[in-house]
């Protein structure tokens, strides 16, 4: 088990190198640069800036230097648009906030989506099922950039329950977390229902009933594990959807998370910041996928780790 986890984590490194290389090259091929703006900077200033950040070096040398700094010192370089801060500092400040948002949103999605799906499956074709699945359909269909303003309008500006923006107390967190997690909750509900329906019809669940177990125990002890497999395998890609979704949510709720910097940096051609944030996202995603694989093996003893 430990060997598998280590192997799996090590295998992230080559992938990460490819991601870094491709991202580096692509960023440089995007037209424009960090210092050409509508309000033109004096030519000599721009020259000085470019020299300072070694942007006139050959591309291969820039890449080599950047990679060496990263590997040897873990240094992602300076952020061009935030002259006083390095990329490392920006990530150190914003990553915890993004992680909070992401983890809370995922917990919310699991807590809402999975029970909803179970109810849908156990009460199949009753009004409870229909209601749960209709809600899920709506949740899947409404994009976050529609959901967020709607929720702000209702819960902040009309009912005054929660603040409109920022990330400070738990009251600030409610709307962004719900907004980021709701589409995932809806999708999880559908997955859970489908997975549970399949398992509920299986022979071993019939066996469990024939043993005299109560319906509750049949569902929770015998059916749930198998029914959760599709959910668990979705958590990997689901996490990436959540990250993408949080870009929008962070922007709308003005949360100083990493997603906001990612979008801004891409717009500003802030090469180092884009690469840094992208690498962090990449690591998160791959580590999470590795965890999902391990979880899968925990749930289904037939899965061999190797």
């Amino acid at each position: 088990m430990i060997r598998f986890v280590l192997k799996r984590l090590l295998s992230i490194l080559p992938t990460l190198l490819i991601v870094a290389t491709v991202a580096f090259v692509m960023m440089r091929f995007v037209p424009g640069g960090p210092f050409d703006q509508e309000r033109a900077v004096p030519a000599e200033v721009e020259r000085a800036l470019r020299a300072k950040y070694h942007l006139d070096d050959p591309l291969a040398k820039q890449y080599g230097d950047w990679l060496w700094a990263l590997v040897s010192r873990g240094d992602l370089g300076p952020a061009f648009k935030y002259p006083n801060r390095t990329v490392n500092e920006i990530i150190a400040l914003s990553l915890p906030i993004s992680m909070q948002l992401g983890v809370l949103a995922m917990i919310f999605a699991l807590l809402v989506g999975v029970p909803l799906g179970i109810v849908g499956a156990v009460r199949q074709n009753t009004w409870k099922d229909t209601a749960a699945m209709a809600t899920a359909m709506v949740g899947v269909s409404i994009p976050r950039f529609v959901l967020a303003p709607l929720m702000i309008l209702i819960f902040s500006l009309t009912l005054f329950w929660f603040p409109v923006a920022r990330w400070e107390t738990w009251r600030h967190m409610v709307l962004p977390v719900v907004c980021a997690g709701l589409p995932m909750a809806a999708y999880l509900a559908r997955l859970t229902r489908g997975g549970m329906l399949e398992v509920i019809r299986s022979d071993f669940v019939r066996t469990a009933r024939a043993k005299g177990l109560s319906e509750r125990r049949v569902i929770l002890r015998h059916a749930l594990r198998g029914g959760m497999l599709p959910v668990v395998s979705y958590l990997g890609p689901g996490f990436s959807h959540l990250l993408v979704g949080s870009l929008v949510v962070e922007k709308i709720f003005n949360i100083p998370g990493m997603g906001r910097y990612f979008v801004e940096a891409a717009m500003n051609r802030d090469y180092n910041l884009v690469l840094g944030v992208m690498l962090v996202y990449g690591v998160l995603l791959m580590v999470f996928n590795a965890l999902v694989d391990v979880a899968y093996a925990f749930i289904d003893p037939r899965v061999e780790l190797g």
Partner: protein
Amino acid sequence: MLFEVKDLHTQFSTEEGVVRAVDGISFSVDRGEVLGIVGESGSGKSVTSLSILKLIPDPPGRITGGQILLETEAGKTEDLVRASEARMEQIRGDRIAMIFQDPMTSLNPYLRIGAQLAEVLVLHKRMRRAEARARSIALLKEVGIPAATSRIDDYPHQLSGGMRQRVMIAMALLCDPDLLIADEPTTALDVTIQAQILDLIQERREAQGVAVILITHDLGVVARMADRVAVMYAGRIVEEASAEAIFHAPRHPYTIGLKRSVPRLDVARGQRLSPIPGMPPSLARVPPGCPFHPRCEHVMAVCREKVPETREVSREASAGEPGEGKSAAGDAAAGATKATRRALHVVRCHLGDPALDTYHGHPTSPAPEAQQVDQPGGGAS
């Protein structure tokens, strides 16, 4: 009588209409007795077994009539049809246990077999975990699992099919049930394992005196195991008799056809098997009259119009009263002692019925004889 089913009806509502999967069947089993229920796929055998435990998925299925009588204490019987779900949960796995067809899918792949065994004892016998585990290991040993002490921590996929079926049997026997329902217990297993599993059931029956309802489409299995045999067709029992009578003097053309469809070693090489022509009817559209008439080689006009009554065809034992000759199977079985019941032979067919069998003439007309089965070209179309 330990267990008795009277005029049981189970229906499913489907898009094609109401399916009468079990349409008024009656039978009984006593302690230490094996009742075989045979029939083709779709004849309602499995629905019967699920109905007994009230495990019919509702909706779409529902028990619409009849009684399922289980002797609780000496002399007292309880009608399971009217029992609450909570009461059924007490009975399932404790008084009445079930073995299913496919051991590959009937055990939970996500749980260790020890956990699946022990939970039955924790539930019904209020045992502590350690105690339940010890009893589980003991039972695994009894059903012939080698190294049971370590095997108990295996997952089902680590066991072979035969071993899994042994585990299923151990699971069913954990609480010393009064009645064991084995629904095609050997169909999914290869032949050598089949024999072992049947021996095991036979052995447990003798050791624990458990009553067994053995559901199968395999006449060989029934011949080997059963004391009495009920033949099902289209949700009804068309013939019921001692295993001996079913094999040596079958009365219903369907039973005769089933018997003829079994490959035999003592028949000359090159001779074709003569299966029953056609398919069992869809239970949503059972033909009027006798449901077997479209496939029956002895079909008479009356068969197309009138559903045959169950009647008694012979009584070798002396205990029966003469006037009882035409009573329905359920009543006859209910009133009979074990000895007379053993000899009771009922059939649901117009053929040979003195009142209706105009074609075959006189009242005592022998039904198609067993020997006919072996004749070359025995009349199958």
